[in-house]
């Protein structure tokens, strides 16, 4: 006979059995516990300060929906200003649904919402680049383009709206995977950049924060469902990070028998990080200039994203269009 009673309030229907600490929680105590934990992460690591303007990435996926809903608590209390951005990469049959959900969520929470598309900013969609690439030798994966341009647009909009922080929905699974992957691959320079926030390297660079970093992915899924949001649970059709997926499956499998494994991986990493940083961070090259085309921080006169754009327009699409 299993006990279906909430260990917090005694209500007789639980939605989660947390093997990591023995808690069994009803829907309401569960949502409370997630919100409290995220707000504690924010406070403890000083992820926001009073008066911050936070721009949150809202894809319509579960992580971003949970994040905007929790950051909205701080907005309602008058501690921060909050705006959301959705980037439409132009992935037909996939992104439309995310954009629609993002719009609904922003409206429901009364959060100012920016929708920026590759098509209007760069005059191409991700689908179009991938189509044009077919049969060419120099084949790049969709995630490479996507990552570069999303980052550029995110930073641009953050500057345009004078955001003081950019918030992203990375969860405990994502972070644990990154730590283990970089460790196994010996990628120590990437490792020192994993953290609660990126440090501002110059005034053009809006610091990024990860408030959901201590919440397991499955609990985020449960949180948005229990909060009554409609969520886009589909995976991206271009998703391919096969090594990350393997590591993810491996850690989740371990987690069944060792339910605290993700927490300990993250906590231990945070403990050893200062030592790795001391040894390796100083060798990392910091961009010290500004891109002539887009104003992003760059170590040369034109930044990586703009060079990439030039190549796409001149070599891939042959449309002679430089920068939209």
């Amino acid at each position, binding site marked *: 006979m299993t006990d279906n009673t909430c260990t917090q309030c005694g209500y007789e*229907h639980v939605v*989660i059995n947390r093997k990591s600490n023995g808690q069994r929680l009803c829907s309401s105590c569960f949502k409370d516990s997630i919100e409290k934990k995220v707000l504690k992460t924010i406070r403890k690591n000083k992820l926001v300060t009073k008066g911050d303007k936070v721009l949150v990435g809202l894809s319509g996926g579960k992580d971003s929906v949970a994040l905007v809903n929790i950051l909205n608590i701080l907005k309602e209390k008058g501690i921060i200003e909050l705006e959301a951005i959705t980037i439409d990469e132009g992935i037909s049959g996939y992104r439309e649904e995310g954009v629609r959900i993002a719009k609904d969520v922003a409206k429901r929470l009364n959060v100012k919402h920016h929708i920026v598309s590759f098509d209007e900013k760069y005059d191409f969609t991700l689908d179009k680049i991938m189509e044009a690439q077919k049969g060419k030798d120099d084949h790049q994966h969709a995630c490479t383009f996507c990552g570069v341009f999303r980052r550029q647009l995110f930073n641009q909009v953050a500057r345009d709206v004078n955001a003081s922080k950019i918030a992203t929905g990375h969860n405990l699974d994502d972070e644990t995977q990154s730590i283990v992957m970089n460790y196994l691959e010996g990628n120590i320079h990437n490792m020192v950049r994993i953290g609660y926030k990126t440090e501002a390297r110059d005034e053009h660079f809006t610091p990024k924060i990860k408030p959901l970093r201590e919440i397991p992915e*499955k609990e985020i899924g449960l949180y948005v469902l229990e909060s009554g949001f409609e969520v886009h649970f589909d995976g991206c059709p271009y998703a391919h990070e096969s090594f990350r997926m393997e590591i993810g499956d491996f850690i*989740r499998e371990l987690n069944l028998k060792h339910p605290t494994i993700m927490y300990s991986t993250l906590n231990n990493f945070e403990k050893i990080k200062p030592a790795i940083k001391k040894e390796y961070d100083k060798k990392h090259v910091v961009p010290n200039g500004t891109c002539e085309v887009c104003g992003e921080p760059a170590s040369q006169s034109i930044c990586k994203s703009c060079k990439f754009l030039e190549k796409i327009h001149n070599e891939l699409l042959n449309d002679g269009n430089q920068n939209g």
Partner: protein
Amino acid sequence: MSITLINKKDVKEIEYEENLTVEDILKKEDIPIETVVVKINDQTVTEDEKVNDNDKMEIIKVIYGG
């Protein structure tokens, strides 16, 4: 017992032996328990919830991979 199993757009009626839990059914269907949230008759349940005859069991995949 007979269960209606809903997995996205896939809806099917399945016959199982009596006295199974959500976890037992997920194992039978080869669905990794760590990647889904399960609702029985529209109410979210834990993996040790007992499943009864004529229940509607909905599987919501919240994690990719697995």
